[in-house]
């Protein structure tokens, strides 16, 4: 089968690219191992959270205007600011069609509360994380309740509260701590292996439990009008569940992302996949590309784990395999490589230059900025120095930015994935 566009990697960059291509009628497929970084993300979309000094950025697009001028190797310098905005609008619309509302604080970043009670700047969030109501609750220092599900070992409200209280925004806020539990579900408390956010999300998705949960919330929240829970109030249909709970309790419900699996991220992942499939895209999960064959300046074919000797071909290919964790980049004893095509990688050759002395060093780690080098058309260069014209790269496989220290991972994934799609759409039109 010959595709118009074959995307290797089903993360945020790959899905964005796939949806855009499919929405233009391109015969598009995504090959994915199954999981992606959304599964351990906050579920909010960061554009630019911190500057190079580690200070919080208030207005990301304003900051980026100067940043892209000074840092021409940054992916944002290639997508351009209108490109970022356009891609975000596109994805926000697609998510909205799938029932997920992402809201921003106009042109400003807003904060989301982390498990540890720190505040992180981000740009787009689900309404259980950011809305006008949240701003109102924080500013008026209303009493809040930070609750947990009894026996859930991936979240500790005491820690959230303790650090939150150190922040001036919450200094005078009265915080109530408490647990909710379901007696008929507590047998799982003994579950030796899994009692994770996803298990609790399933409880919330079970409609008959909701009245009891609402009772528990009311009981535990000590009269607070706003209640935070670890993000586990359902993956599918979470909006309706939240609405029901809010109606039953008469309280505002806020979500804090906890340890993976990230329910907030899973919602985005599911919605984007659905969107892609509805547009006619082929989502091939549980598959792995083993190697890519390059001839001159073209990718000839791919070999995958399941296809055996049968080559998989496409007019255009997009590499969105992520960085080290997901296998998009590979670290040998003393060199960094891109394992599928052997693309030219920007890195350091001496291992001791890959990392910083302390783990939470202010300067973060150089290895997070390593990755594939691309030109302005988003084409990479092969080992022999040839630009590969039918291959495009997007997301964290790219070099030139540090998604964690900049808090820019989501924005780069969406904008570069989108840009690759635009490039392919244009090329196919020209054909």
């Amino acid at each position, binding site marked *: 089968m010959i595709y118009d566009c074959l995307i290797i990697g089903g993360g945020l960059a790959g899905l964005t690219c796939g949806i855009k291509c499919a929405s233009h009628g391109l015969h598009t497929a995504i090959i994915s191992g199954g999981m992606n970084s959304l599964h351990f*993300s906050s579920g909010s979309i960061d554009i630019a959270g911190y500057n190079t000094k580690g200070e919080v950025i208030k207005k990301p697009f304003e900051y980026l205007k100067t940043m892209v001028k000074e840092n021409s190797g940054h992916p944002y310098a290639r997508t351009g600011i209108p490109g970022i905005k356009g891609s975000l609008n596109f994805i926000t619309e697609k998510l909205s069609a799938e029932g997920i509302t992402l809201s921003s604080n106009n042109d400003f970043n807003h904060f989301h509360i982390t*498990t540890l009670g*720190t505040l992180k700047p981000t740009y787009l969030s689900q309404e259980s994380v950011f809305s006008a109501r949240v701003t109102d609750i924080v500013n008026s220092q209303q009493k809040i309740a930070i609750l947990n599900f009894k026996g859930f070992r991936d979240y*500790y409200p005491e820690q959230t509260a303790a650090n939150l209280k150190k*922040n001036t925004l919450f200094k005078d806020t009265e915080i109530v701590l408490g647990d909710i539990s379901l007696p008929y579900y507590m047998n799982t408390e003994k579950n030796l292996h899994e009692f994770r956010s996803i298990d609790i999300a399933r409880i919330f998705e079970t409609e008959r439990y909701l009245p009891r949960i609402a009772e528990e919330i009311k009981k535990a929240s000590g009269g607070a009008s706003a209640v935070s829970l670890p993000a586990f109030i359902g993956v599918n249909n979470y909006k309706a569940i939240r609405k029901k709970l809010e109606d039953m309790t008469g309280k505002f419900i806020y979500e804090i992302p906890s340890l*993976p699996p*990230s329910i907030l991220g899973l919602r985005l992942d599911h919605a984007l996949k659905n969107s892609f499939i509805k547009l006619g895209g082929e989502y091939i999960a549980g598959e792995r590309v083993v190697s890519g064959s390059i001839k001159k300046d073209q990718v000839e074919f791919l070999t995958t784990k399941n296809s055996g000797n049968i080559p998989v071909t496409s007019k255009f290919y997009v590499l969105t395999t992520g960085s080290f*964790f997901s296998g998009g980049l590979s670290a040998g004893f003393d060199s960094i490589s891109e394992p599928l095509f052997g693309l030219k990688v920007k890195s350091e050759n001496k291992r001791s230059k890959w990392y910083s002395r302390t*783990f939470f060093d202010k300067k973060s780690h150089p*290895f997070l900025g390593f990755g594939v080098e691309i030109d302005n058309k988003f084409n990479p260069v092969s080992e022999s120095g040839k630009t590969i014209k039918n291959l495009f790269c997007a997301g964290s496989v790219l070099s030139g930015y540090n998604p964690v220290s900049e808090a820019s991972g989501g924005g780069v994934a969406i904008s570069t994935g989108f840009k690759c799609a635009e490039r392919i759409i244009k090329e196919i039109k020209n054909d």
Partner: protein
Amino acid sequence: MNKLETDVIIIGGGATGAGIARDLSIRGLKCILIEKNDIASGTTGRNHGLLHSGARYAVKDHESARECIRENKILKKIASHCVEETGGLFVTLPEDDPAYHRNLIEGCKYAGIEAKEISIRKALAMEPNLNPNILSALVVPDGTIDPFRLSSANVLDAKERGAVILTHTRVNGIIKSGTVITGVECIDIKGNQTEIHGDLVINASGVWGQELCALAGIEIKMFPSKGSMLIIDYRINNIVVNRCRPPADGDIIVPGDTVSLIGTTSKEISYDKINELTVDDEEISVLLNDGEMLIPNVRHTRALRAYCGVRPLLAVSGETQGRNISRGIALLDHSERDGLDGMITIAGGKLMTYRLMAEKTADLACEKLGIKKECSTHLIPLPGSEKKISKKSRIKDFTGIPDSVVGSTLYRHGQRLHSIMTKDKKNYRVICECEMVTEGEIEYAIKKLEVKDLVDLRRRTRIGMGPCQGELCAYRASGLLQEFGGSAPDESVELLKDFLEERWKGMKPVLWGDGLREAEFTYWIYQGLFGISHMKEPKKIDNTKIDTIKEESPEENIKKEKNNKKIKRKLK
């Protein structure tokens, strides 16, 4: 300032200090053990955990070899839950001098170590990952010993017999009255100061003993030697594999718990570097290259972390009495050596002979205090090693709990399993999936085993020691620490950060392949998702300041003498 009184003050919570505390407690003396960091956090916890048969020393150092095999047999009995009787192999590689093999057999015979030559085929059947090109193989009664568990069990026993344990407490002053040392001043991590008076101060602080002696105005000189080791993920061998050649770098692979360890390098370092040791890239290459010669698939296995320790070798030149017990162990009586009463120093030796060192030290202590009590640490099992738990009772008592969970707890705590796995079902919840550490085990460790932070908790339970190096369980453990009263909630987050920084120290030297993948994921979670470095920094307390020697008033001196008599009476 708080004031405490005791019979004996022991400084240093390594295996030796812990062993002395236990020995003296069994003999009926009151002790206070002071450790500046955590139990087994220094040299004790930074070796390869080999239960020496003595074969390693059999060719050149018969006395050490004899000590080793004697202690080997004792530890198998008294510390059975800390020991794995894996057996050991000495294999000759084509690169090695074949004559050494003969010398080793003779040396073992002379030292009383049971060494048996086996066919290469048999050796490969016993240890299939072994280099198939070996020229000869010898079986010796090597084993493995967990230094953390061993020290912790000694401390637990001492504590249960009345000893007081002060960890994360630093001695910053010696109290003297004329030529008699009468106590110490110390400061804990929160800045609380304590004055402790006793009849005898025992310096068991290993390589740090030089600093401590200096506080008392005594000069001793350590020759620190750094040893680096590499841990590989997966237990690629079940038998200790030694290279049959004179001791050198990278000549041993020791299985331990769920991993294997390649040891060891040896490099002299200057004393002022002992607190800032790091494993360098060159050492990693040496260990990998040499390790690969013994077990070829070392190279294809993920390196988990690297660490180093510092051997406390005491310089003997210029001393008249020197190593007056054995060539390895140095017991210094400062009244004879320096004309200063009330203090003795124990140094040198190795983990393997910790009990013997403790025995010798306790003997001298008793002699000085005029107490006639024999050592019995070689006869009384450590807590957890009292009796083996039979498979039958294990099944009966823990029906419905996966054997991996029960087994891991049993493996780490021996018979104390029953104090951990009580009927409360929360005690079975698995918190660290790599090492199968349950909530119950964590609660037990926090409440009973002198756990002050998450690094201490790791040493007691192995939490965060597995392949993921504490990726998710570190956070869970920090939450449990504050839940079980081990710290305040905000403090627990600080301790989480410290824990991850501590893990990083061992990860950075081996940051390639899956190690880098794991590090990236961990960084994403704690920095990207949790924003840990955006916490408001607390004020750190500096407890490293050193006080000068404090002179005691004559009244206190008289009080001390009275006290001395009291002990003697009591023990009669």
